């Protein structure tokens, strides 16, 4: 199976040089590597430049509304677990309006792969600040939120207990392909953070600057060590590669409220007589 077997006839309407082209290619390559037949594949997105991607993949695709791709994909995958379900979108879609759904999707650990093309900007609506736009950039461009610290989405995702977390760069095709493949194979909720450039609303050279701030995690990095993962994403640089993969049966990173053996069930009789307000 070839990547192009998973492409529709539609020509992407992204700007020439947009990072999303690479993601489309990497994703279809990974899916082809995994021999996912179009009819067994669902690609779900919200709204944004990046969210146009499902239109270019031959699949049961759904270009939904802004910020709601995860709930919709959760419903689909829960009702039809046999479908390979990939959710794609942008940083605005996923980390601003859609942020509230992310920790919950992770908690449910539905076997979805969520790919965020993070270009640090709202591309489709013409360059407003997104939750990952850097402070300096907001200030110098007079964007809204010039005092708001950017989010660290990978740290948030790890802290929500995500079982598979990886980061890649839209300019590095083999790396992307590999990350997507592993994420899709992972039998639970998987998250891939893609550093993507926006040639139109980010400064010239933005994508290269992202790359300069990135480094590949070394061979000896232990992807099963949650503590190490958290440290790896807190140092202001972009670690690339599989950042965390939960070993089978291990507790979630968000292990704050573990099960308690001493737990006693409530008194069912009392409950019956209570009002519903």
């Amino acid at each position, binding site marked *: 199976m070839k990547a192009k077997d998973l492409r529709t006839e539609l020509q992407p309407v992204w700007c020439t040089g947009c990072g999303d082209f690479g993601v489309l290619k990497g994703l279809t390559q990974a899916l082809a590597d995994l021999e996912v037949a179009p009819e067994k594949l669902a690609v779900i997105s919200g709204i944004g430049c990046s969210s*146009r991607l499902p239109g270019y993949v031959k699949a049961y695709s759904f270009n*939904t509304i802004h910020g709601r791709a995860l709930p919709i994909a*959760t*419903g689909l995958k829960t009702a039809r677990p046999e479908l390979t379900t990939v959710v794609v979108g942008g940083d605005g879609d996923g980390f601003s309006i859609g942020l509230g759904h992310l920790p919950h999707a992770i908690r449910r650990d539905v076997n979805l792969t969520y790919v965020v093309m993070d270009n640090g900007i709202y591309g489709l609506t013409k360059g407003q600040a997104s939750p990952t736009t850097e402070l300096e950039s907001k200030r110098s461009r007079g964007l809204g939120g010039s005092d708001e610290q950017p989010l660290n989405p990978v740290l948030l995702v790890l802290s929500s207990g995500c079982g598979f977390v990886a980061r890649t760069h839209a300019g590095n095709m083999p790396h992307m392909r590999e990350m997507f493949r592993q994420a899709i194979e992972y039998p639970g909720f998987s998250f891939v953070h893609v550093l993507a450039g926006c040639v139109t609303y980010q400064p010239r050279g933005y994508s290269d600057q992202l790359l300069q701030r990135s480094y590949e995690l070394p061979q000896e990095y232990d992807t099963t060590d949650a503590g190490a993962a958290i440290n790896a994403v807190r140092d202001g640089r972009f670690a690339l590669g599989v950042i965390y993969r939960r070993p089978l049966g291990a507790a979630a990173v968000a292990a704050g409220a573990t099960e308690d053996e001493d737990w006693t069930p409530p008194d069912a009789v009392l409950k019956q007589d209570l009002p519903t307000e």
Partner: protein
Amino acid sequence: METRTEVLPANAAPETPMRSLVIAIAGSGGDGVALIGDLLLKMAAHQGLYGMLVQSYGPQIRGGESAVVLRIGDREICYEGDDTDVLVCFKVSDLKRFRGSVHLHDDSLLVLEEKDEGVLPDWLGATKRPVFRHPFATFDGGVEVAGEPKNMMALALVCRALGWPESLAQQALAERFSHKPALVERNMPTFRKAFNLENVPAITKLIGHGVPLVVETGNEAVARGAMAAGLRFFAGYPITPSSEVMETLIDELPAVGGRIVQAEDEISALGMVVGASFGGVPSMTATSGPGLSLMTEMMGLSSMAEIPTVIVDCQRAGPATGMPSRTEQSDLYHAIYGGHGDFPRAVLGVFDVVHARDVMFRAFELAENYQLPVLVLSDAYVAQRRQIRDGVTDRRDKPRRWRWTPEDGPARFQLSGDHPVNAFRVPGTPGGTYMAAGIEHTEDGNPTADAGMHQKMSEKRFAKLEGIADDTRTWARTLGKADATRGIVAWGSSYGMLREWVAGNPEYRVFLPEILHPFPLEAFEEWRKGLAETTTVELSFQGQFHRYLCSLTDMTAVRSIARSGGLPMSMRELGSLLAAPAAKKEKA
């Protein structure tokens, strides 16, 4: 499942009147009055008696006032009655929140705490029967302390007054606490002591037909009706007064292979439903007003992407948070008109618990056949009541979505079909891949910003409403004699009260649409021929139903009785409003 048109032919012999009893029990949260109500209803159902029970609470979860009103009778009951035949009250001061729910008549039996010297409020009315006083509470130096369970005593006294045997109560208790038989045994002595008192007054004995019946709440009926219609995916977020739809499905849906998710909010809940239904699985959510408001944008997506969804809205009172446990009929505007842009949806109304099952079937039928969102408007009054009903056998002809095969052609949203609905492409079907979208799209599902295509797609989507209007032209219920000259138009849970209203006021007949949008206008116009006077009745301050009808047809000289919700409308109130000389002032 047939439209049940309760027309009494003009010259029909008068029916034998229904025999029924209204029992009200008021107490504090800890008194367990709800349990008494539940058990009495169960016992009635056992004997083949009908009945219904409504509950009311103060604001506290526990420790506030609490009351139940139940009515038991030998005919199907969906109105709790105006006058209380038996009132048990552990503390007179608890009564104050139940103004409007209890009224005594000359022959009412009043059961009070022996040592309670509280003064009965005026609005309660008065009985000519002597008050029966019983030492429910235990006192220590004038202060009430925990004693024997008051609710067991009250249960015993009511059973005894009704002439029901101890064994019936014992059985009901055993069933209710099947997991705690010791608890029942511990409490039976208290029951017996009160049951065996000498001087308990007797009240009318009701005799059922002997075939055990089923007790169901509106929310349970909605949940089960949906399952029977093919529901296999549910997502919801708790909200009063709808939560029991989800709770029932958590218990019952997995057994038929369905899946259920408690979502993080209502946007997500309807989102999951849209996703599951995109996957080909009949899906639903249930909520109340605040949740429905949050679902607005997603409702548009369901319609735009032509994905069937069923949305149950158990209406409560007020905008914003309002009065969560109270009933109202004020989400009608939102159901019909809510959401940006032009998109079709259908709206159904629920009459009572029995109808709730039917209406869910109809909802799935429309959603699956027409691939759009269908809203079912229930309300707190139907949702939270317990009603005794006949057993049901599920229909076999479940709604079925038209599934795409390659013969159905290449375009998901084909415009040239003889029918505005296209075969649905269920994921997994080879060759059927396409993109569904909330963006305006071409026949193939590709995004477009072409004004002409937008117009054509709007035409196609709205043509569904014409199809639905055609299919549902008889989806209305009429009550009363065909030659009655006074007409009442109402919807939803007003049904129960109006059914009894026309029985007692044969000069009236009633029209109740089952489908509110598209409205069965022809049936309505046909029905209103020959009326000398017409009134709309609803629980909405703005008169949403009335104004909606104004946009559809000539409503000159039709009077509007519209008030805020909170309490359902009683026959007493309706009577006085209809008798009032001036029509309610119209609001623009």
